[in-house]
Structure formats: C-alpha cells, structure tokens
C-alpha cells in the first residue's frame, strides 16, 4: 500500500491518471507543505528521466527470422469462429473459481469507469487538467503542427501568452492517447487525451522552465506503441 494520500496523489499525477478532483487535492497539498512540493518535484524528475529511456529499433532481420521459425502449416482454422464466440481456456490462465470473481470485478470496474467518465465529462473544461488556460485573448500563435494517426487527428498549436507559453489541441481521439513534452526534467502531459475520447478542444499552460528557443518535442504513445513526435518551435508564424 502507498503510505499516505499525498503519495498516492503524486504517483497518479506523474502517471497522468489523476482526475480533476484529485488534481485539486494535490495542488492544495503541494501549496500547504514545502516538503510535499519537493517530493512531488523529485518524483516528476525521476519519472521524466525514466520516460526518456529511448526506444531502440527492432533488429532489421527480426521479421525474417520469425517467419523462418514458423511451422509451415497454418494455425488450425477450425478455432477461428470459436475465438469470437466463447471464452476459451487461455494458455497462461489457471483454472479456478477466480474467473467468476474476476468477471464480477470487471462489471464493477466498467460500471465505475462509466460513472467516473460521465462525471468527468460533465466537469467544466478548465477543471480537466488543472492547468488549462481560461483566456485566449492575449495569445499569439507561434507555431502549429498537424497530428494525423489512426487514433488521433487534430492540430497542436503553440501560443505565447504574456511571458508564458501554452499549447492547444483541437481535434479528435478514438482511443486513450498519452502525449507529453519532456523539458528540463519536467514532464507536461496533455492529460485530456489520456482521460477521454471524442472531440477535443483544450489548452494547457506549459511550465515556466520552457523558455528556451530550441524546438519543443511532443511524444505521442498509444498503449505502449509510439505513434510519433510533433515538434513545435518558437519562431513566430508569418
């Protein structure tokens, strides 16, 4: 078990799994206790460091070697219609009554997610990430880039707002997508894309640390599979 509530909130926050209520609670904890604030900064830095582990390309001959290792006869086709129609004993599954408990837990989880998501979608937009920007009146567009993968399409736009920077996303996602920028040991997520699916329109303020002139790279991942990167630069749009 996690030792205390702030720890639980901090861990969920760095994983992009904290809802708006939890985010508000965490903000209060961080504002009230410098020790918690320091711990939160440390966890975020560690998480960003771990997230920066590079993905190596798979060996070029892996596909060929797998093909060569496959038996010449195809998988028994008689099983195909059965797969979709009934639950089968799985290779790694052990028999036992836990399946009924798991099925019940699944129903409870799905119901919980339904109500949770419903509540989240009803929340005002500015409460969804805890860092959304309310006003666009003083925003100056610096750069934009098109995102176009099967599970997410739209436009990512970088704005200058006073001394700060923000990024807006307008588009649609059909599955939970993780997207973030890592800069100076800080990881800033586009939390909405991981929490909800459908049409999206939101803006996120970037940390103050992001002030340099080099390009800002956003990483997009869908359930462990990298989709790609989008780079925004601070050169003004003409």
């Amino acid at each position: 078990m996690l030792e205390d509530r702030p720890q639980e909130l901090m861990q969920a926050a760095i994983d992009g799994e904290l809802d708006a209520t939890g985010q508000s609670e965490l903000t209060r904890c961080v504002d009230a206790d410098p020790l918690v604030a320091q711990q939160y900064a440390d966890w975020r830095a560690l998480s960003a460091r771990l997230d920066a582990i590079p993905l190596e390309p798979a060996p070029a001959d892996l596909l060929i070697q797998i093909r060569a290792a496959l038996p010449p006869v195809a998988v028994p086709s008689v099983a195909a219609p059965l797969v979709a129609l009934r639950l089968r004993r799985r290779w790694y599954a052990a028999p036992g009554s836990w399946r009924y408990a798991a099925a019940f837990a699944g129903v409870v989880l799905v119901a919980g997610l339904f109500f949770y998501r419903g509540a989240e979608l009803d929340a005002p937009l500015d409460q969804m990430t805890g860092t959304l920007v309310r006003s666009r009146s003083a925003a100056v567009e610096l750069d934009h880039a098109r995102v176009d993968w099967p599970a997410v399409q739209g436009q990512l736009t970088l704005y200058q707002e006073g001394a700060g920077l923000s990024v807006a996303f307008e588009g649609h996602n059909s599955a939970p997508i993780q997207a973030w920028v890592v800069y100076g040991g800080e990881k800033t997520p586009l939390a909405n894309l991981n929490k909800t699916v459908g049409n999206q329109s939101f803006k996120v303020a970037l940390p103050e640390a992001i002030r340099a002139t080099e390009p800002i790279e956003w990483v997009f991942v869908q359930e462990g599979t990298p989709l790609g990167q989008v780079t925004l630069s601070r050169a003004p749009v003409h």
Partner: protein
Amino acid sequence: MSVDDTVLVQRCCAGDRAAFDTLILRYQTPVYNAALRLVGNADDAKDVAQTVFLKVFLHVADFDPQYRFFSWLYRITLNESHNLLGKRRGYAEITGEELDPRPGPEAQAEGGETVQSIDLALRQLSLEHRQVIVLRHVLHLSYEAMAETLQVADKTVKSRLHSARQRMRDLLSLERGV
C-alpha cells in the same frame, strides 16, 4: 485506417500469414524494447522477441478476446524474459559464473549516461519491480492495462510501481553519490 488487433487475430486463426506479419510489424518494437530492458542485452532480447511471436502464432487460437491482444502479448514477453533470466541464472549457478550487473555494450553504445545508469539500476531491481517500470516507462501502459497484463489488481499495480520507483530513486541517488 489501421486494422484492429482483434480482426488481425481472427484472420491469423483463419491461417492468414499476412495478418500475422502485420501484428509483428506493429508490435516488434515494443516487445523487443521490453525484453531489452528486462534481460539486459540485445542478443537475448532478440531471442525473446522471436520466441514471443512464435508462441503467439502457435497459441493464437487460445487467445481470449475478452482481453486486449497487446496485454496478452506483453504478458508472454514478461514470461519469456523471466524464463530466459532463470536459465541464465541456472547456467551461472552450474558454472560458478557470476552475473555481470554492468550494462551491456549496446547500452553503452546508446551513449547517454542516463540510459547506462538507468539500465544499471534496473538490473538491481527485483523482477517484479523491473516489470512494472518497463510496462509503465518503456511501454507507457495505463494502470488498467498494466493490471490486465500482470493479472493483478489496479491497487497492486500502483503499490508495486511506487515501491519500484522508490528503489530506482535510491539506486540512482547512490550512483550519483547523493
């Protein structure tokens, strides 16, 4: 528009090799990288990835469609990596060799001091902790997907991930001499 995994699995069951190729191309990079961080060197990771896809091919008819394909695939990856580490450990016990905790040459070739030190710290974690770090920070799975892959409760994932990060923090601090 990419074809859904479940459709590809059904086509595999019907003997469609092209569908299986698509699954390999879609998942070879995450499977290889998970194995690489779990077993610690490129040759073993390639062997693991090859075995994983071979087993998927042979057992695809046993895939339970109530789960997501990738969680089944990643569970096989974890198990195969575990098996390989067990064999390596058994070999070391028989021959009296000690396992080398230093990063392999490929990790050094990656250059970044960060990657080397993280690899070194990963090798000092228990397998359980290493698995959650890999699922979360290499494959970027959600808590729900991690729980499905590991076949444990969500709260177990959170607790295990927190413990693993504490250990990583301590190991990386020690390595820095903090």
